[in-house]
């Protein structure tokens, strides 16, 4: 569904991604993890087309990224940015309806029904629709942004640190939402995270970014990885806790 070949990203003399390759299978949830500053966000930006890599190619749903037009891209992918990136001058409902209005000729009544549906799918009460982003709590912003990302029923969803800045309850809620969307709507989900709980409880496979290279496998098998960094990352005190939490909840 998403495939990257030979990605190189450089900042000055520092090579952040060293000929990376990645394949995301349709319908799977893939988590991209790594330490702070390892280049996870840069990789995400490369995959969604916000940054042109210094070398390499990305293709989405079999089409090279460069050849996907803006309208097509809007229908194909949805993105959840780390701070939500809701348009601050529009209400939540207007935020969700904007991509729908631009992509279709549906009358506003119909658009409102769609927006209401997306809000409910994202677990928000209907009255959130009239609120403005500045009036929302962190968890609600993430959910509203989720609803907007789902506006055109994309086939691929990219999430940038979906559980960051959230209290444990809200974070668990987002994890559940991700799982639900994947199972019910069959959306392929690529998420960037350093939240090990999310990694263990929601992701089918994990891609760990170490020294500019990716190691991709199921979280269970990654636990046995010989790579020292990956070992420390997953087996550290918080890793163990996260794993127990996740398997306790029922993976």
């Amino acid at each position, binding site marked *: 569904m998403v495939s990257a070949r030979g990605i190189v990203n450089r900042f000055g003399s520092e090579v952040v991604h060293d000929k990376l390759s990645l394949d995301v299978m349709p319908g799977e949830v893939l988590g991209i993890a790594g330490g702070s500053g390892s280049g996870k966000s840069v990789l995400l930006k490369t995959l969604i087309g916000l940054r042109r890599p210094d070398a390499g190619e990305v293709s989405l749903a079999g089409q090279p990224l460069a050849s996907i037009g803006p309208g097509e891209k*809007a*229908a194909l992918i949805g993105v959840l*940015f780390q*701070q939500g990136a809701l348009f*601050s001058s529009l209400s939540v409902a207007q935020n969700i309806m*904007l991509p729908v209005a*631009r992509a279709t000729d549906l009358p506003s009544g119909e658009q409102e029904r769609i927006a209401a549906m997306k809000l409910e799918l994202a677990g928000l009460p209907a009255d959130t629709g009239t609120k403005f982003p500045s009036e929302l709590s962190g968890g609600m912003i993430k959910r509203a942004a989720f609803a907007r990302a789902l506006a055109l029923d994309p086939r691929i969803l990219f999430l940038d640190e979906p559980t960051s800045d959230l209290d444990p309850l809200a974070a668990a809620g987002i994890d559940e939402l991700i799982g639900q969307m994947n199972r019910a709507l069959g959306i392929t989900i690529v998420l960037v995270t350093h939240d090990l709980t999310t990694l263990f409880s929601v992701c089918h496979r994990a891609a760990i970014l170490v020294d500019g290279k990716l190691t991709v496998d199921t979280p269970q098998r990654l636990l046995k990885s010989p790579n020292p960094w990956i070992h420390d990352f997953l087996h550290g005190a918080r890793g163990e806790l996260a794993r127990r939490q996740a398997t306790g909840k029922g993976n």
Partner: protein
Amino acid sequence: MNDGGKRLTLEGVLDVHTLQHAKLLLTQQLKTSKTKVFDLGKLGALDSTGALLLCGLREQGVELTGARAEHQRLLDLVCGLKLATLPKPAQVPRWRQLVINLGKGADDVWRDAYAVIAFVALAANATGRVLLQWRRLPLPSISRHVAETGIDALPIVALMAVMISIVIGYQGVAQLRPYGGEEFTVNLVAVSMLREMGVLVTSIMVAGRSGSAFAAEIGVMRVREEIDAMSVMGMDPMEMLVVPRLLALVITLPLLTFFSDLMGLAGGAAIAAGILDITPLQYLSRVHSAVSVDDLTVGLVKAPVFAILIALVGCMHGLRVSSSAESVGRETTRAVVKAIFLVIVLDALFSILFERLGV
């Protein structure tokens, strides 16, 4: 602090606030009474800075005993640190820094020029696209900006125009009185308002008001990743953010200019009535004979050009904001300064142009 012969008992508080005082006292004690043992049992409060001092003394051969459990833990922690010295930043000689800045400045100018050309091209492209596809004209957005840049600015523009015309009027009267030509002040005020002052003062005000508003709004959107979100959702930020602002300003600046011209003339009437004893009716007929349609046109023709300038500079700097609050402030300032500067430069060029054209 107590002295017990070879043993010194420390009492009181040893922390960052008492550090200087304690250091003086303790080092004095060491020199004068050759005490080799410090008893810390009665020490009231000890923080890491105090512990650092004690560890330093221990390295000079002093024995520390009797510390309370929590102080002992702190001492163990701090004394175990390696304490590398902070590296000093490389000192670049001043003349070299000057050369570096000069080079950087020249490079920046070149990059700036390139960026400006690219931006103008993209903006022109987006504007053309929007204008050719009537239905995509973002009317709600444009009307909001017309309200904010135009209607909201009416009071302040009126005030400025009246003030400026009064100022010019006073100067005119003062200079022309000795020659007995003070009634020509009316000509001075009317012609200069219509040709130059009206449009210039209004444009500067709008550059300050709206140029900064554009840069700041768009800059904050950049910080919040709203612009990235737009790109990913297939929306062209140029089309959605820059074009409405550009079109709105091109609509409002000429109207504001005309309005300020009227206000300027009104100010002139006030001066005429106040200082020159010219009645409003006489004033009107004087203005009618002094001023030609060309004078008005000259002023109004400049307005849309300035509008495009101010809008493009404001939006460009807004889009250049990187991800910090400091960057928003900096780019907003740059936008306003650049806009005002360019307006004045262009005004001068226009003056030359019109003079050549004999208008």
